[in-house]
């Protein structure tokens, strides 16, 4: 998030797009309720009808994968009515002229045809967002899990910059992180192109700094992303996978492909707390510990570094994950000698400018939001203050609408989209073992519009087959008009009705995110 969770409460307009906030981030949803109570305008854009829509001032259901067209349409109206902030654009950004040219191709009538959103609603969204004193964008995986994921995010940045709704309190472009420490895993260099704090592996000075700090010679070649690792195994260039706390057999698109890759690898090491479907295919399984059995830190969606404290002893012979990694590294031939997670954090802050002022002692209480460059710095509530962007000037990108990688046809006539439900989390490894949560939602349910169900004689509770070009699963149907005609929805938490057997592996060309939110599917009743 460019801004902080608490700021949402005091904004004048919140534009929620591709986030089912009450279900996936309920605590953030409460800030949206409070903002509404204080008089903020709420805009909700989601292909499904969602609970937050009930309190929205404008609620639209755009067609799957048409976010760029919708956002360009909104920006077209803003230009047309003169609601943009020319002063902000002139002083703090570059490249706006090229965007202006592209926007000409997106008048509301045309956008309405592509997105299914009425021209009136497009104008209303443009007015509320652009003319409110402080507007905030909230988005989640509904924006990113597309072959146009990067385009979607850049379009949101265009919208925020052209209206000056960034770099001030209560504004910003605010992705809600889906996992407790996905922010931290990125911050810590768990990415193929960067060391900690987003320092690029390709920059010679950075490489030299880390070579000196770590006493090793380092590679300046950008590494592989997860989908590339999987194809690398299939082509023989990758022989070994070391998988720490992940479950690609349930979380990744096209499960059959993942299974083939894991079976083809010479060595699969899985370090986890449960015997997941991924662990079942491993050569070595190393029992690590859960959050309740360890000390350390997580970094949340608003860049806040928070303490994690050990409450109970590790179960059985399970060991702290940092000790397992340290022991393997030492036995491998690269010795490590840390005596605690705190000692590791000392090293992190010494090599990471944005974590430079972070120490365990300073994290007591509220934690600290990075950037926090030194011991005197009190952390950063919102980024890009006064239009000072990280790269200097904010860069506009002209973006054209592109259709999803797979579209419906005669054989696969319905659209499938996937997501989470309120009682479960990701691959269900933890929540499905919590009795109270499993009682709430014990099994996967496919949401079908009554009109589509009627044509196939499907009623709530009936078993149906879903088939795509990747695979076929059986699941129970539930009729609901919260899903539009010609779309079906199912959660991906349930391995026995694994939605990711069906999903498409087509990737965004830049960030390599798979298009989990859109594919074409055939629906049949189980006879």
């Amino acid at each position: 998030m460019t801004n902080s969770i608490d700021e949402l409460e005091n904004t004048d307009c919140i534009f929620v797009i591709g986030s089912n906030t009450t279900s996936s981030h309920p605590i953030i949803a409460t800030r949206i309720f409070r903002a509404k109570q204080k008089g903020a305008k709420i805009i909700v854009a989601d292909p499904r009808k969602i609970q937050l829509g009930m309190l929205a001032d404008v609620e639209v259901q755009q067609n799957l994968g048409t976010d760029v067209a919708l956002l360009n349409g909104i920006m077209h109206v803003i230009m047309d009515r003169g609601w943009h902030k020319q002063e902000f654009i002139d002083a703090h950004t570059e490249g706006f002229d090229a965007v202006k040219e592209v926007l000409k191709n997106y008048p509301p009538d045309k956008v309405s045809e592509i997105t299914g959103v009425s021209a009136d609603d497009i104008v209303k969204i443009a007015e509320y967002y652009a003319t409110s004193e402080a507007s905030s964008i909230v988005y989640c995986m509904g924006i990113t899990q597309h072959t146009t994921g990067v385009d979607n995010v850049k379009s949101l940045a265009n919208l925020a910059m052209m209206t000056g709704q960034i770099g001030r309190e209560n504004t910003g472009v605010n992705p809600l992180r889906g996992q407790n420490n996905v922010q931290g895993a990125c911050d810590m260099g768990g990415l193929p192109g960067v060391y900690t704090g987003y320092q690029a592996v390709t920059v010679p000075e950075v490489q030299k700094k880390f070579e000196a700090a770590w006493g090793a010679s380092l590679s300046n070649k950008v590494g592989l992303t997860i989908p590339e690792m999987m194809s690398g195994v299939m082509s023989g260039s990758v022989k070994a996978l070391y998988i720490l706390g992940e479950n690609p057999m349930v979380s990744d698109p096209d499960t059959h492909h993942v299974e083939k890759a894991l079976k083809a690898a010479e060595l699969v090491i899985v370090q986890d707390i449960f015997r997941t479907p991924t662990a079942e295919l491993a050569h070595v399984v190393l029992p690590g510990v859960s959050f309740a059995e360890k000390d350390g830190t997580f970094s949340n969606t608003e860049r806040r570094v928070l303490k994690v404290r050990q409450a109970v002893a590790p179960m059985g012979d399970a060991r702290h994950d940092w000790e397992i990694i340290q022991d393997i590294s030492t036995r491998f031939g690269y010795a490590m000698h840390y005596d605690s997670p705190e000692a590791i954090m000392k090293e992190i802050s010494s090599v990471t400018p944005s974590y430079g002022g972070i120490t365990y002692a300073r994290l007591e209480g509220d934690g600290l939001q990075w950037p926090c460059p030194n011991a005197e710095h009190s952390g950063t509530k919102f980024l890009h203050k006064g239009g000072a962007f990280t790269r200097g000037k904010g860069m506009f990108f002209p973006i054209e609408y592109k259709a999803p990688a797979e579209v419906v046809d005669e054989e696969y006539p319905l659209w499938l989209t996937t997501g989470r439900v309120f009682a479960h989390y990701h691959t269900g490894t933890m929540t499905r073992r919590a009795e109270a949560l499993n009682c709430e939602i014990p099994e996967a349910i496919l949401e079908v519009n009554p009109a589509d169900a009627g044509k196939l004689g499907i009623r709530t509770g009936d078993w149906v087959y879903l088939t795509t070009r990747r695979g076929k699963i059986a699941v129970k149907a539930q009729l609901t008009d919260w899903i539009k005609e010609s779309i079906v929805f199912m959660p991906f938490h349930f391995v026995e009705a694994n939605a990711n057997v069906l999903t498409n592996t087509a990737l965004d060309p830049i960030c390599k995110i798979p298009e989990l939110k859109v594919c074409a599917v055939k629906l049949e009743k189980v006879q």
Partner: protein
Amino acid sequence: MEYKTTLTTCPYCGCGCGFYLESIDGRLVGTIPSKTSPVNKGKLCIKGWNVHEFVQHPNRLTRPLVRKNGELQEVSWDEALDYTADKLRNIKEASGPDSIAFFASAKVSNEENYLLQKFARAGVGTNNIDHCARL
């Protein structure tokens, strides 16, 4: 009997809610939201309220396993760690550092992610490290 509360941070979504884990004699029994957490201010979602339930589940992995004759079998830590380190070293020697790839994790701590990428980059010599940020 020893009753303890430990202030810590939720392992589910990216909000980072603060709560106290309640334990009696080393056994987790409950979760109480932190009123002073800047994120959740005394609230929790249904997943947070029940977070203590999965931790000490009987199906937890408690012993290292190595595949022998097609089956995963319990072994000592020494054997599991040596097996892992030896295999990785052999693969690096035979096929080069870029033949090894690492999945970091959005579930483990900053410190653990830091160590894994340090091992990948400084120990093995590859930048093949990624995690499920995209999923």
